[in-house]
C-alpha cells in the first residue's frame, strides 16, 4: 500500500529510442516502474534493447521520446554529471582505471565530489569490507587482480558515494560460471545490507531468476512482453514468446525459487515417543500406507522405525525401539530442487525437514508437485 503513495524509484514512461539511420526502434514505447529497494532484471535476446534501456536511465543514451524519472524527478532536469554521480554504474568489462590503484579506483567518485581525505579513506575501507576485498588488495593495480576481484572492485566503486540506484550491465558476464554464481550470491547478501534499487541487464534466464525481484522480459525492438516476478513468469507465461524464452523446463526452474519452508506443514507417519502408543504408530502407518514410522522426542526427529521392529517388540515403550531405517533430512531453507534430489536418493521417498534442530514435517515428491501446481497465495 505504501508503494502507491510514494513514487517508484525509477519510472519509464513511453520511452522510445530510434538510432539515426536505423530501420526500426531500438526501444519502442517502453513503460516500466521499478520499486524502491528492489532488483529488476531486463532480460531478453540480443537486439531487444535491454542495454539501450539501461543506458537511457543515466543518459548515456538520450531517448528519442518519452520520459524517465528517478524518485519522481525527470532525469533531464539535473546536469548529466550530477545525475550520474547519483547512480552507480557497473559494466561487464568492469572498466577499472588501469593506472590507478584499487583504492583510488574506488575513490573515483568521492574524489570528483571533492570529499576530504579522511572521509574518502574511511569509505574505501568500509566498501572493501562490504564487497569482500582484502585490505592488502587496495594498494594493487587492477591488472594484478583476478576477474572476480576486479568485478568486486567495480561494485565497490559504483557504491562509493552511496547512490540510491545501481545500474548493472551484464555484471557477471565475463567471469567463469563458478565465480559468477559466487558473485551472484555476494550481490544478494550485499543487497540485503544496502537496499539499493538495482536495474540489471542480463541475457541469462537463470541469472535473472536468481537475482531479480521482478523480471522485465523484452523482445526485439524493445517491446515489453511480460513484467512479473520470476515465479509468475515461469508459472504463467503471458504469451508464446515468453513461453519459448523460459523454455520447456520452467517447472524445474521454479524448484529453485521456493524453499522447503514455503510448503505447508505435513506430519507424515511420525508420532511422539512420549505420548503415542503402539496402536497410534500402526494407525499412522496405515494412514500413510508405509511400513515404517517416525519418532520425535522433545520436538526433534529421532529416526524411522520399521513395522517389523514394532511387531517384534510387543507392547514395550516406543522410545526403546531400534531406529534402523536411514532417514533423509533437508533443511527448511533448502530449495525444492535440493529437497527433490535428496528424496530421489533416499530409501523412504520421504525427506524429514530439519527446521533449526526441530522436526519441521516431511516432504515427498507428491507434495512438491502439488505445490508447483497450486496458484500462489
Amino acid at each position, binding site marked *: 500500500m505504501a508503494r502507491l503513495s510514494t513514487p517508484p524509484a525509477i519510472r519509464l514512461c513511453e520511452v522510445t529510442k530510434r538510432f539515426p539511420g536505423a530501420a526500426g526502434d531500438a526501444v519502442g514505447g517502453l513503460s516500466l516502474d521499478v520499486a524502491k529497494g528492489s532488483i529488476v532484471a531486463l532480460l531478453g535476446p540480443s537486439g531487444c534493447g535491454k542495454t539501450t534501456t539501461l543506458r537511457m536511465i543515466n543518459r548515456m543514451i538520450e531517448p528519442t521520446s518519452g520520459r524517465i524519472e528517478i524518485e519522481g524527478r525527470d532525469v533531464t532536469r539535473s546536469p548529466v554529471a550530477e545525475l*550520474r554521480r547519483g547512480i552507480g554504474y557497473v559494466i*561487464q568489462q*568492469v572498466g577499472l*582505471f588501469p593506472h590507478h590503484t584499487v583504492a583510488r579506483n574506488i575513490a573515483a567518485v568521492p574524489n570528483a565530489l571533492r570529499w576530504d581525505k579522511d572521509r574518502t579513506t574511511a569509505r574505501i575501507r568500509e566498501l572493501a569490507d562490504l564487497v569482500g576485498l582484502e585490505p592488502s588488495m587496495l594498494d594493487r593495480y587492477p591488472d594484478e587482480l583476478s576477474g572476480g576481484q576486479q568485478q568486486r572492485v567495480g561494485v565497490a566503486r559504483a557504491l562509493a558515494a552511496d547512490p540510491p540506484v545501481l545500474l548493472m550491465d551484464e555484471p557477471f558476464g565475463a567471469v567463469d560460471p563458478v565465480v559468477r554464481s559466487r558473485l551472484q550470491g555476494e550481490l544478494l547478501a550485499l543487497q540485503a545490507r544496502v537496499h539499493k534499487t538495482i536495474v540489471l541487464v542480463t541475457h541469462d534466464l537463470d541469472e535473472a531468476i536468481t537475482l531479480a525481484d521482478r523480471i522485465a522480459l523484452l523482445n526485439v525492438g524493445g517491446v515489453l512482453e511480460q513484467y512479473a516476478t520470476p515465479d509468475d513468469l515461469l508459472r504463467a507465461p503471458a504469451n508464446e514468446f515468453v513461453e519459448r524464452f523460459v523454455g520447456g523446463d520452467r517447472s524445474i526452474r521454479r524448484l529453485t525459487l521456493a524453499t522447503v519452508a514455503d510448503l505447508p506443514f505435513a506430519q507424515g507417519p511420525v508420532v511422539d515417543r512420549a505420548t503415542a502408543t503402539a496402536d497410534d504408530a500402526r494407525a499412522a502407518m496405515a494412514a500413510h500406507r508405509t511400513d515404517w514410522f517416525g519418532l520425535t522426542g522433545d520436538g526433534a526427529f529421532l529416526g524411522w522405525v520399521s513395522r517389523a521392529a514394532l511387531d517384534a517388540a510387543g507392547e514395550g515403550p516406543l522410545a526403546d525401539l531400534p531406529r534402523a531405517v536411514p532417514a533423509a533430512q533437508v533443511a527448511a531453507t533448502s530449495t525444492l530442487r535440493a529437497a527433490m534430489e535428496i528424496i530421489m536418493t533416499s530409501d523412504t521417498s520421504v525427506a524429514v525437514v530439519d527446521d533449526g534442530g526441530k522436526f519441521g514435517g516431511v516432504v515427498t515428491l507428491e507434495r512438491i508437485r502439488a505445490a508447483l501446481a497450486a496458484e500462489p497465495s
Partner: protein
Amino acid sequence: MLAEATNPIIRWEYLVDEWDQIQTALVQHIQLTLLAVALGLVVAAALSAAALRYRWAASPITTFTAFVYTIPSVALFGLLVPYTGVSTTTAVIPLVGYTLLVLVTSILTGFRSVPASVRDAAEGMGLSPTRRVLTVELPLAVPYIVTGIRVATVTTVGLVTVAAIIGEGGLGRLILDGLRRTFWTPMTVGASLSIILALLLDLSIWSIGRALTPWARGRPSRGRSRTGADGRAPAGGALAAHAQVGAG
C-alpha cells in the same frame, strides 16, 4: 701515405685547441633539439586534439604531417632562407615540421588505446569531460606519447646537423667543416657527439616516462596499456633511422 699520416680519424690536440668551438656547437645542438621537440609537441597536441575532437579532421591532419615529412630536409632549409633569413627560426621551422608526423601519430594512438570499457565507466560515473581527459585518458596515453617523443628527439638530433648548410646546425657545423677541409677530426668529433647526445636524450626521456607510469612496470605482459612503456622499444631506434634517411 703522407696525407694519411697527417690526417688521422682523430687528432687529439684538436679537442684541446678547439674546445670552445666544440662546446658552443654542442650547446646549440641541444638547444635546437629541445626547442624543436618542445614546439613540435605543442603543435602536435593542438593538431591531435582537433583530430580527436572532429572526426573529419583526422585524415587531413595525418596526411598533412606525412606530407611535410616527405620534403627533403636540405631543400626545406634552403627554401626558407629567402623568407626568414639565416637564423634560428629558419632552422627550427623544418625541425618542428619533421617531428609532427611521429608525435601526432603517437598521441592519437595513445588516446585511441584507452579501452572502451574504461571510457564508458568514466563517463557513466559522472566524471566531467575535462576530468576524464586529464585523469583517465591522458595518463593512459602517456606510454605511447613518450615513445613518440623519444623517436622525435632522436630524429631531431640527426636533422639538426643538416641545418649546418644554412649556418646553424650545432655539431653539424663541425661535420661540414671537416668535409670542406678534408680534415677528419672535426667530422669524427661532431658525429660521435651527435650519437652520444641522441642516446643520452633517449635514455633520459625513457626514464622520465618510466617514472610517470608506475602502473605499467615490472609485471607479466598482460593488458595493453604498457605496450609502449616497457623496456627500450626497439621500434624507436628503427623508426629514428628511417626518419633520418627519409628526411635527409
